[in-house]
């Protein structure tokens, strides 16, 4: 990201093309290929309604992948997505059962629960120096345990509030689903933070070499903790939106989002080792994953086949452009 300070406004467009990441280009090429294959299979695949519907479904994943990307840019990973989502959704629905004040506070409360999980992750990773993969698995297990105790092992009966449903399924601007607007807003905020604030620069710096970032006077541990808190909050918000979409929270609602969110970030060209990647790539990754899922379901592929194709496609695409350098 160092070259963003170089060059003026005049060099902006050519630089944008020059800097285009081959991984992002490949991801977009794959999207076009999937659209082409889909249109061969069914004529309605390219209709605006269908594509808009896909974009709406993609926006849930997009919100979650945004948080995941922030953490991956640090060279860490957040495996607590499934139960951060479920905890956010369940707590939001639970708050809704406590009268009018609960209904108003439902969404913030759900997000807050996710942020809390994220803060525990952040403290573990940043201050206790526990590998992120391990601590996030552990907090995921604890969140699951808490939710199982809370719900008694069943999906909770509380339903989503009107506001949650409106955010997930409503139309504030005719023709554009609210979920897509939310994703666009969160995405724009993320792009701003990553490219225009010192926090964003720090995130890239830590991803490249945390030691160097620390020696240049940055409180790297605070940045790491904030990044995890944001990731947890966005996962929970994704869960809240999904609960609004389904009008209910469910036990295993988050399981189907862990692999896709990591895959979307990595397929979008963000290095899993951290320090390199653009939000545009993550957008491409999210759309790519959603289209792949959608084509598989249009083809009425059973769950087993979907999982297999899914895993194979991710490994294949990573082998195509996500390999670590061979040099030592």
């Amino acid at each position, binding site marked *: 990201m160092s070259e963003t300070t170089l060059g003026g406004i005049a060099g902006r467009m050519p630089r944008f093309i020059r800097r285009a990441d081959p991984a992002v280009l490949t991801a977009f090429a794959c999207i076009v290929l999937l659209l082409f294959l889909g249109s061969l299979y069914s004529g309605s695949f390219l209709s605006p309604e269908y594509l808009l519907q896909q974009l709406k479904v993609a926006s849930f994943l997009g919100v979650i992948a945004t948080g995941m990307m922030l953490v991956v840019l640090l060279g860490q990973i957040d495996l607590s997505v499934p139960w951060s989502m479920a905890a956010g959704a369940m707590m939001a629905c639970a708050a809704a059962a406590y009268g009018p004040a609960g209904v108003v506070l439902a969404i913030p409360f759900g997000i807050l629960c996710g942020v809390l999980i994220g803060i525990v992750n952040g403290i573990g990773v940043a201050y206790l120096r526990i590998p992120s993969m391990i601590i996030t*698995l552990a907090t995921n297990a604890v969140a699951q345990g*808490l939710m199982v105790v809370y719900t008694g092992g069943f999906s909770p009966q509380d339903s989503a509030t009107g506001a949650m449903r409106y955010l997930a399924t409503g139309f504030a601007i005719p023709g554009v689903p609210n979920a897509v607007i939310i994703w666009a807003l969160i995405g724009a905020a993320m792009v701003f933070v990553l490219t225009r604030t010192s926090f964003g620069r720090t995130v890239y710096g830590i991803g490249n070499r945390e030691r160097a970032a*620390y020696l240049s006077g940055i409180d790297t541990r605070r940045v790491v903790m904030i990044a995890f808190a944001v990731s947890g909050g966005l996962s929970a918000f994704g869960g809240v939106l999904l609960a609004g979409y389904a009008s209910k929270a469910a036990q295993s609602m988050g399981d189907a989002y862990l692999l896709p969110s990591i*895959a979307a970030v990595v397929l979008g060209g963000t290095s899993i080792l951290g320090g390199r990647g653009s939000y545009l790539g993550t957008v491409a990754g999210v759309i790519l994953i959603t289209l792949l899922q959608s084509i598989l379901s249009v083809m009425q592929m059973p769950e087993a086949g979907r999982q297999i194709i899914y895993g194979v496609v991710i490994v294949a695409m990573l082998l195509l452009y996500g390999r670590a350098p061979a040099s030592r």
Partner: protein
Amino acid sequence: MKDWRYWLAEQRGTLLAFGIFIVMFVIYTSNHPAGFTANVVQTAANKGVLLAFVAMAQTLVVITAGIDLSVGMIFLLTNCLASWLVVGTPMQTTLGVLAVLAVGLLCGAINGAIVIYGRLQPIVATIATGAVYYGIGLLLRPFPGGSVNEDLADALTGRVFGVVPASLVVLLAIVLVIWVPFSRSVLGRAAYAAGSSETAAYMSGVPIRRGKFAAYTLAGLLAAIGGLFLTFFTYTGEAAYASGNAYTLFSIAAVVLGGVSLFGGKGSAIGAIFGALAFRTIGDLLFVFDFDPLWQPLFQGVILLVAVSLGAFALFRVRNRLEWFL
């Protein structure tokens, strides 16, 4: 320092895991309504051995500074496969067992090939291959069912001479046949060296690629042995996503409890086995003390969280703050 001191320093994690297990098991049996009887030990052994195999598998990969998030799914896949193949005459059963083990080896080899020769990050690669293995398992068993050669199953889950649980004997045999030769071989040392410092190992001409590949492949085999045992206990095959995930998670917990360093190069499968047995015993303590089973996931999660946080004590020994950042 004398020789035994070195030995003690090297085995500290393993001994600690052994100690935790003994303490937990004493608490468990002394509060169990039936007390310390062959039956109680057999049941505990059968439950613990499943996790012990998966934890051994995880250890092999963790030693190379990698991680295998697909062990639980290989465990499920081989369980589903065994519920089809390990049936019929003794001859067919033998072939079935061999086929299941071969599939486990293959799964491990695929992981190894993708991570080592494909140069992908182990986390992402094994999550993706885990999805594939789960998919194949679901294809084999869309609904729980199937059967297994019950004579073999009963023999391996019963007791030898009426006292010793057969599953523990098998576990010991597997340790002697797979772990001990591996850890003493050139490949095993290469796996340790690669986990400790890949660059240094490379510079010294250690066959790190082959060592890591062997570790991933044997991990698949050990997970398959676990899958076979699951079939022997349940007599059925079932592709339950949550159960596969839980085994992956618990295997990491067991490895951590067993004193295996997640940064690689340190620890032993023996420690992981005691870690697994201790983790299972702690989980079962709740039943002995008559808690609601609903609390079990939370309890296990908290144990995992505490276990991984214990590693943070190493921070107190850090003299230079830059050592925070590896």
